[in-house]
């Protein structure tokens, strides 16, 4: 996997899947390109029009809490986001990120400011903050999830192996 490079967009604690993919847009769930135009709208209006290919979504605690809607990480990925970074993730959202092929990194995001240039080396498990000249490490994924992410998501993983590959 190539290095992923982009700018940090900061969000606070407890961003829910209602912030990311609001319930009032329930009718757009079968129209993901249209839903993606509203990604994170209730946390930062107009986000879809300012985020650039390769950028990073940087949250606080419990980023992605709430509903199991996989549409939430899917439209973050569709917006061109390289990875979501947060102090912590709830389990369903974390699992969904990996399943849709969106890296989710657990890092103390206090150290990252809005607009910082970040570069992710997923293979080495390192995130460089080019603006601050700092490098952060993050916990490695369990093997079962690393395999899914390496294959590009759960659909590709199952197509390739026919089943889950835990080891």
């Amino acid at each position, binding site marked *: 996997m190539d290095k992923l490079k982009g700018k940090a967009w900061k969000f606070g604690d407890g961003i829910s899947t209602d912030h990311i993919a*609001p*319930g009032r847009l329930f*009718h757009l*769930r*079968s129209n993901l390109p249209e839903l993606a135009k509203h990604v994170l709208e209730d946390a930062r209006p107009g986000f879809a029009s300012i985020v650039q290919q390769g950028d990073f979504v940087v949250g606080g605690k419990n980023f992605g809490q709430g509903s199991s809607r996989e549409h939430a990480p899917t439209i973050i990925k569709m917006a061109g986001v390289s990875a979501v970074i947060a102090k912590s993730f709830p389990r*369903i959202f974390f*699992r969904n990120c990996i399943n849709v092929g969106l890296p989710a990194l657990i890092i103390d995001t206090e150290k990252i400011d809005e607009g910082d240039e970040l570069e992710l080396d997923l293979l080495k498990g390192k995130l460089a903050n080019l603006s601050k000249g700092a490098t952060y490490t993050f916990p490695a994924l369990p*093997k079962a999830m690393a395999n899914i992410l390496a294959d590009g998501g759960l659909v590709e993983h199952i197509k390739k192996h026919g089943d889950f590959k835990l080891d």
Partner: protein
Amino acid sequence: MGKTLSEKILSAHAGHDVRAGEFAVACVDLVYVQDGTGPLTVRQLEKLGFKTVSSPQRSIVFIDHASPSPRQELSNDHRLLREFCRRTGAILSDTGNGISHNVASEDYINPGEVVVGADSHTCTGGALCAFATGMGSTDIAVAMALGHTWLRVPETWKIAVAGTFPKGVYAKDFMLHFIGTVSADGATYKALEFTGPAMESLPMSGRLTISNMAVESGAKAGLFNSDSVTKAFLESLGRPAGYRPLQADPDAAYEKIMNFDVSTLEPMVACPHFVDNVHPVGTVEPLAVNQVFIGTSTNGRLDDFRVAAAILKGKKVAPGVRLLVTPGSRRTLLDGLADGTIQTLAEAGGIITGPGCGACVGVHEGVLGDGEVCVATQNRNFKGRMGNPNAFIYLASPATAAATAITGRITDPREFL
């Protein structure tokens, strides 16, 4: 060393002994989706090239969220789901049948089973001593197709609850208090086991309320032992064969043990916009409310409506307040019609909707206006949850909701008992 409930259930489904922290592939007994997550599951199954589901009679599609459909896009999603059921033989629980978690607990889930659903509140099934947990649409697509899923066996917290619930204080108040105590991410990845006299004495309706909200503390599952209450519940629904006693071993290894006593607990409220922003109702500003909503997978059962009806009997909803009453399932609606509960709520001024998720979804049947305040018996008060990011949602018990409907302000229900 003995086993927790999760270790016991997952060992039985993995085909070998598994312990907390281990990864396992476990077969699943019941898999379900709803109309918010199901269309994506159907499309992912197509992408994966699966034309059949592993066990059609244990695969359920619930049309409960935007149901009946308020928009053509959603009507077309429903068509897709119905066609999927026709093609694969999966069970269709269509509009009017009720909320997935309510119907699954009434008609399908048995103690000791593994249940996965494309809905975060699938953990509701833990009340019946099933290992029940929510996942995304693609995970559920794979579980439906293959009949198994991968899981990390969770560490377990034992939540030991002593005492007797005071008058006007319910399972919902305890669970809000618990979430306020541990916080919204305090129990992330953990399984919770609710034990002790206060939990053992709860009827199944109260247990379902608590298990339903386990995910609001971050937990993966929230389980109760399978006991005489479980047995009586299954018998009352004509499913006695599904019962088996099941409890954690006395020497099971818990990551943490938390002790609570409900004897001094007060009615609690979760204030906007977070479920762990919990305060005793008496300390919350008695704001004027625009809407009161009683229903959902958290508190949409007959016992909940009876509590509300007892408070509202012979009284009227305050002018300017909309009281929404949404039975969780068709069974709840029919039982509530038969015993007069629904009549009482309607006479008080309640608006009775068809069974389903109702206003909790944020797309129909009670979307809030800008600046409006709602007291709801549901499980989430996130910004935008009820369809408007400029509205304010307070979570409470059916009793607090009913008392609030009468006064038009957030009210301690003990004033009416």
